[in-house]
């Protein structure tokens, strides 16, 4: 289930030693009471139901999937804004799964979050200076030189350091998101969880913010978990992609593998559903897989494979057995060839393995 160090393509010598973040069989169930007829019945929403992944320093993992698939819950569990029901989150070798609030302080410094909506994630009554210096004070960083650090941060994210006394309302959406990014960076984190960081922004501003995140990632060697529903943005930004469906990872792997040779039917459907701008350039529209209906309720997910109710390949076995997340290639190739290909896991009884694409794909000739 977990990404094996030996199969990482870009595993540098040092990072191969110890992963930054190890998530194993993570679960989060939300119990609640439901009225059924005249009785109250206990029920559970299985928001995240057993997911595992590993992240190394400087790596970027994209979490994609439709609303309700557990992307945001996962990011809240990893940051320990929420406590997992089962499973473990290990950050830098330290198990943080069930740490108490006061024990989480140091983790709060190393793991920061960027939120989706820059209008509600900044306190409207605080100046930018106060918003950005609060994390410094909490962690006792840059004592006595907070103002200088705040100005440095503003400059880092492309804002005018003289605006330190302004309020969030005086900034546009894109600028506010920059402030949110500066706040996350204030405490020099190692891992940033970005939950839909650009989806509330206009198209022309999205590109600016994406560029900023990319620049910061490379300069500061940050690891990212990037939660997004926009497949184009994830493709641009991430090294690894995990596709989630109803609380489970259904496909995990190198960006190139996921986008060019998706094996799980859900990934294929997701990719084919995204409209394609290249249609305007005379490129024939891709064959669209029409999924029927919506994502089933996570209260009572389908037995076996959770995607089977919408899957065109579903057979009897899909309802009886849950397919494990595993590699689908019956490997006759050498270990070395496998490593070069990168890790690619999927959870389907009938994956579509394009053997022709197993050979290294040259850089695509996009017009």
């Amino acid at each position: 289930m977990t990404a094996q160090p030996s199969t990482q393509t870009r595993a540098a010598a040092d990072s191969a030693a110890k992963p930054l973040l190890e998530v194993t069989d993570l679960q989060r169930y939300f119990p609640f009471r439901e009225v059924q007829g005249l009785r109250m019945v206990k029920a559970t929403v299985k928001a995240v139901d057993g997911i595992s992944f590993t992240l190394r320093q400087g790596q970027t993992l994209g979490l994609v999937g439709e609303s309700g698939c557990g992307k945001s819950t996962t990011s809240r569990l990893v940051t320990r804004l929420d406590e997992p029901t089962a499973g473990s989150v290990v950050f830098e070798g330290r198990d943080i799964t069930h740490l108490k609030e006061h024990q989480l302080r140091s983790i709060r410094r190393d793991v920061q979050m960027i939120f989706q909506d820059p209008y509600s994630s900044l306190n409207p009554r605080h100046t930018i200076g106060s918003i950005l210096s609060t994390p410094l004070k909490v962690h006792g960083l840059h004592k006595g030189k907070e103002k200088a650090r705040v100005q440095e941060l503003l400059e880092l994210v492309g804002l005018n350091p003289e605006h330190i006394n302004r309020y969030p309302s005086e900034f546009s959406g894109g600028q506010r998101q920059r402030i949110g990014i500066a706040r996350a960076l204030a405490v020099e984190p190692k891992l940033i969880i970005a939950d839909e960081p650009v989806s509330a922004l206009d198209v022309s501003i999205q590109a600016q913010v994406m560029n900023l995140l990319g620049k910061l990632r490379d300069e500061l060697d940050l690891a990212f978990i990037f939660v997004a529903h926009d497949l184009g943005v994830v493709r641009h930004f991430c090294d690894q992609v995990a596709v989630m469906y109803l609380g489970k990872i259904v496909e995990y792997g190198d960006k190139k593998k996921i986008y060019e040779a998706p094996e799980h039917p859900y990934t294929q459907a997701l990719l084919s559903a995204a409209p394609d701008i290249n249609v305007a350039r005379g490129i024939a529209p891709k064959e669209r897989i029409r999924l029927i209906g919506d994502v089933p309720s996570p209260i009572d997910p389908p037995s076996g494979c959770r995607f089977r109710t919408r899957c065109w390949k579903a057979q009897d076995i899909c309802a009886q057995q849950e397919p494990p997340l595993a590699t689908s290639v019956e490997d006759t190739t050498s270990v070395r060839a496998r490593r070069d290909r990168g890790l690619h896991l999927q959870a389907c009884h009938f994956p579509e393995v394009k053997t022709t694409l197993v050979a290294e794909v040259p850089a695509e000739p996009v017009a």
Partner: protein
Amino acid sequence: MTATANAIPTQAAEATSVGDVVLDVQDLSVAFPTEEGLVKAVSNLSYQARLGRTLAIVGESGSGKSVSSMAVLGLHNPKRTQITGSIKLDGIELVGAPQSTFQKIRSTKAAMVFQDPQSALHPFHKIGKQIAEAYLAHNKVSKAVAEKRAIEMLDLVGIPNPKRRALQFPHEFSGGMRQRAMIALGLVNNPKLLIADEPTTALDVTVQAQILDLVNDLQKEFGSAVILITHDLAVVAETADDIVVMYAGRGVEKGDAKEVLAQPSHPYTYGLLQSLPSHSEDLTELKAIQGSPPSLLNLPPGCSFHPRCDFKSQVPGDACWTELPEWRPTPGLANRQIRCHLTDPVGTLQEDEGVR
């Protein structure tokens, strides 16, 4: 309100066949007086929507795309809005028209599908009842007939088990189902024009594909005109026939949707397309447009886009700073109009793309 305020609606020739103009917007300006000054949400906008065709109005938030379409259905408060210019829906002049005129045309001639079906549907009324009500308002039929019609409409938009679904409340529907119900509500009186304001923005991508397919199928069946308001250029590429690109309340480029996206001739359209991640898959940096859109309270003089434009230095003199560019055909391209001072926009942008 203008001098035409009390003019009697003129009954010009009605649009009946594919390609006929249903909606003719000329020189439309919409402004909101506020304490800080006049917010010019839309300035001198002109476009036409034709039967059987989909017109995409594209722009960022605050570019006036929704405001202009709301004016078509008379959804602005006339006391707080200054509307000038002309909106002719099926020959009926709507600028300055009384509420009674709007009540007649809403749903029968033009209907709107909103972005968020959760807030556009009434939470206390059953879906079927809401659709039947819209039908009853314009048809002298019994309640039973209207309810039957509502069930038919739900069936038409692909809601399984429509009889049972009609008796449910909006909260019992999923997001995609609600948007389908919203479309059924919009089409119940067979309007000639359907305005879809970001109909899929709140939906997941697999559901978005379903809804766009549905709108396309229904358009083929009913032959109506569709105005698609969106910021998603990929959606435009796959669904629209014509396009108007808006920036800061003004149209900046219009023409055939696919042609415009394949070969933009206005620096703003070009910049938008360049900034898409799909355009630079393997580049480390996206080609962003610098700066942010201007305040509608205080538009820059000359071309509104000039503070963010990379090409203003290529225009002789200071026209970009002082002169508002007028609509003109793009040199070298058929069936295309832009508002830009560049002498050879196509060549300039092509050269830039080559360099990058």
